[in-house]
């Protein structure tokens, strides 16, 4: 089933045409940078899968929230699809995020909903799908993410791998152009991590999704899927080979 596009026209209207998916400009990753030149700068191109890694105190854990506009950096700019996230109003941010997917640390699943209902959430409340279309799309996502057996479980009843798969299925339910994932492989086996990333990078039309991953470390099994690995050192981005 293809994703309806009319509802996302509004979200895209807020973007700048042909703008890069994500640009971090002179961002302070640490509360007290020891040098004014130690700023984080990074550009993510369309279709690129980039992993940003760093220690717990490197500030890398904040990048996901800043990219979604859920919080803002103390200084510097996070520009997504040409828009400085700090300048959008709360209502515009809600609209704008429909073209972005987000996997927050842990999974962010709603505990009183089944995994299947969690996957259906964005389709029900952030799209103009009819109920029948929502059912059809959710079934397809559940099958595609291998959740058929666990779909009726609540997050607390499911194992970590199923929860993570459900959270990623929910993040890509609207087939977003950009996916931001925070520590997506923690607690997963190498094979499960690779399968999850493989599915997350694939868009409905077969093209590659732009993916930004923030983590403290990466399992070796996923590196072949990454276009770039960037390590945060002293608040700056240092390119590593993927």
């Amino acid at each position, binding site marked *: 089933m293809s994703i309806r596009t009319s509802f996302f026209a509004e979200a895209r209207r807020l973007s700048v045409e042909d703008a890069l998916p994500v640009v971090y400009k002179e961002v302070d990753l640490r509360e007290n940078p020891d040098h004014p030149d130690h700023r984080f700068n990074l550009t993510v191109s369309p279709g690129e899968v980039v992993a940003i890694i760093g220690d717990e105190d490197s500030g890398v854990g904040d990048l996901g929230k800043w990219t979604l506009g*859920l919080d803002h950096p103390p200084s510097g700019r996070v520009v997504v699809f040409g828009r400085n996230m700090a300048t959008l109003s709360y209502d515009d941010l809600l609209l704008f995020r429909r073209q972005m997917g987000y996997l*927050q640390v842990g999974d962010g699943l*709603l*505990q*009183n909903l089944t995994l299947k209902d969690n996957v259906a959430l964005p*389709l*029900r*409340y952030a*799209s103009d799908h009819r109920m029948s279309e929502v059912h059809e799309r959710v079934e397809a996502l559940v099958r595609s993410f291998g959740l058929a057996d666990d779909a009726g479980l609540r997050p607390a009843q499911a194992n970590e791998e199923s929860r993570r798969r459900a959270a990623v299925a929910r993040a890509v339910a609207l087939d977003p152009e950009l996916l931001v994932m925070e520590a997506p492989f923690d607690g997963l086996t190498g094979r499960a991590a690779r399968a999850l990333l493989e599915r997350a990078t694939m868009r409905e039309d077969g093209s590659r999704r732009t993916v930004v991953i923030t983590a403290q470390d990466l399992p070796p099994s996923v590196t072949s899927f990454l276009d770039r690995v960037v390590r945060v050192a002293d608040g700056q981005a240092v390119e590593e080979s993927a």
Partner: protein
Amino acid sequence: MTAAVAAIGESGVRRLSVLGGLARFAFRVARSAGRLTRAGRLVTLRVLINQIRFTALQAVGLVTLLAALLSFLVIAQSTQQLGRFGALERVGTIMVVVVIRELGPLLTALIVVSRSGTAIAAELATNRVLGEVTALEAMGINPDIYLVLPRVLGCIVSVACLMILFDSVALVAGYIGAASTGMQLARYVQIVLAELAPKDVIITVAKGISFGAAVALFCSYHGLAVTKGPTEIPQAVTRGVIATVVAIFVMSAVFVGVAAA
């Protein structure tokens, strides 16, 4: 002295700030109603029905019991006092004035606060602590639409329905009490109807809407205001319940003033 004035000022400003926050919150929730998607409308309706089941249907037994007991107490006390003055016929008047107009709506709202208000505040505070509110915002879903709106509508419908139930049970129980003093049913109905005015119906509906909205809005606001962690949840519940109880009493007083005018 200066410090004392400053302390009063600080606390006053804090309270005003909470009131301002509540007003903005109520406005945001009301505005969000117009932004429901078509699938969202159906799901919200389902959540609303569930909320009514928890808030109204599951409280029917308790409301019936308390309404009957309150009527029994009022009738028992009034017949004793009125009997001394040979004014037993005023029992119906007392039922309408005391139970239907004042105590019925007040007790109904207090029952809903203690059962559902606490649940709403605790649930939304847990949603906040577990990062579920952030998850909703990240998906482009307005938490007011998903979490608050169905609860507000559910509480409004539930409190209004429970008030009608409370008044009905109270009137029936009142008749049973009055009948024990020898009053005929026709006479009782005549006295009650003579006391009831169309204004009473309008005020009961208005109380149902405002008390119901107050329960859901105050408890949701304090539940969602949790920031620090799970230890703050019981405090949020307490704050929500106390604020709602105070608001309900204040609104009751305002309704008395409006009715008198």
